[in-house]
């Protein structure tokens, strides 16, 4: 279980912002931190890992205090049992895949876990390779396995899939989902990809300008309704073409491109907009996501 309430003054791209966030994540839950870049997502994750120090507040994981400004507690990153997957993977270039994982073991660590993790992430055949000889997806698997090798109490993922092509991305999302199910570890993932939130997260925190605006199940947060028996597909607008009366909106659903005819309600849609797609009797209805 992660409980945190932290405050920090940040120098953002558009001037100073105050990060002021309260998070509660239950044991075994997969949570997502969603928001635009510069909203403070990565900073929050770094605070959990002990790589950035909050100005004030507290961080408690499974009842253990990792940071508390009142009691002057601030555990070093080494003392916090967190598995951190960096956006750039941060694999050690001079070590093989296996050595990268073994690096995470404590001195009297049991090497069995390395073999287990290699097998789980499908890296057994690549264990002697150097990171530079691997593909982006394989490198990300190594980073994930290495973060888990220390048997952390929380898994922190900083946009781990953002640099991958969409097929690899979808495969890895499935693998992360599976791995999370198997290990039952509490996880927090930073992402700005909506479909990813839907696919992986039990809970989402929407971060905007340093504040958490909404919290809850992704479907409840983004579509404001759930359980009405209808299909909801998160999608991204690629192109909105109008001939004056009707709009032809090209959208990306997962890795499928679909062209949809829409009326006046599509006027405001621009490429890059996140939308929710609901099929109606004859044609799908589009509604813009908040």
């Amino acid at each position, binding site marked *: 279980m992660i409980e945190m309430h932290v405050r920090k003054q940040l120098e953002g791209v558009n001037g100073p912002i105050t990060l002021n966030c309260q998070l509660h994540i239950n044991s075994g839950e997969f949570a997502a931190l969603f928001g635009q870049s510069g909203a403070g997502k990565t900073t929050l994750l770094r605070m959990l890992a002990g790589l950035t120090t909050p100005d004030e507040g507290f961080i408690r994981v499974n009842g253990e205090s990792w940071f508390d400004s009142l009691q002057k507690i601030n555990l070093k990153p080494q003392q916090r049992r967190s598995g951190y997957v960096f956006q750039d993977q941060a694999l050690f270039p001079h070590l093989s895949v296996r050595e990268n994982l073994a690096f995470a073991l404590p001195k009297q660590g049991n090497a069995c876990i390395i073999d287990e993790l290699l097998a789980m992430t499908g890296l057994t055949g690549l264990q002697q390779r150097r990171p530079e000889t691997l593909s982006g997806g394989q490198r990300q698997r190594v980073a994930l396995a290495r*973060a888990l090798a220390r048997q952390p109490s929380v898994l922190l993922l900083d946009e781990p899939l953002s640099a991958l092509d969409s097929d690899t991305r979808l495969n890895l999302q499935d693998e992360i989902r599976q791995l999370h199910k198997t290990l039952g570890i509490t996880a927090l993932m930073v992402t700005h990809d909506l479909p990813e939130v839907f696919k992986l997260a039990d809970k989402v925190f929407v971060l905007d300008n340093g504040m958490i605006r909404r919290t809850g199940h992704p479907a409840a947060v983004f579509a404001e309704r759930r359980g009405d028996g209808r299909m909801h597909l998160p999608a991204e607008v690629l192109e909105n073409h109008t001939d004056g009366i009707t709009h032809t909106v090209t959208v990306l659903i997962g890795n499928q491109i679909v062209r949809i005819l829409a009326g006046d309600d599509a006027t405001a849609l621009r490429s890059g907009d996140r939308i929710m797609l609901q099929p109606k009797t004859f044609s799908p209805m589009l509604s813009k996501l908040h």
Partner: protein
Amino acid sequence: MNYDWQPLLLTVQLAAVTTAILIVLGIPLAAWIAHSRARVKPLIETLVSLPLVLPPSVLGFYLLLAFSPQHALGAELRDHLNLSLVFSFEGLVVGSVLFSLPFMVQPVQSGFQGLPPSLAEAAYTLGKSRLYTYMKVLLPNIRPALLAGIVLSFAHTVGEFGVVLMIGGNIPGVTRVASIAIYDEVESLNYGAAHFHAAVLLLLSFTVLLAVYILNKRLQPFRRLV
């Protein structure tokens, strides 16, 4: 003709000792400069880089004054450590260390700065101490920079003239290194001996640098990820 190997041996000896001391002092200093946000950092950087722009004779002159027994530092060293740094091999070592410091610090510093910060942070989150991370993650990943620093320090000490002349003088077997010997031989119109020293220095420098570039090319693929 009988060649005198003494100055060349002394040169190599001086360069080796200087480089060894610079490995111990210069690499941690480079790491500190690369990662520090201390206010005194610009001052330290300036002091480290000074030998790059100062004429060697300026450094040599001040060291000569500082080390002379008439001055406080020189007197202290003589009285308490029984050490005379003027016109002695030890003095040459101190002068060379100061003079070659930027050649060790600067490549290693930019090596450290070229590493993504996430590399060290990843090691910390995996439970490893700062020292362990420095030894096992940072140093192995700046091997080309380390090699460059070591070779440049060595080569620069071999090529030293002004500082050595000022604080070492020209004592055969003690402070008479090859570069001084060449000057000395030319002055006494002994061109044969000058040629010998000069040719050996040229060959030595050429071989060392060539070896570095070949080695560096081999170490290169290593940096692709960094």
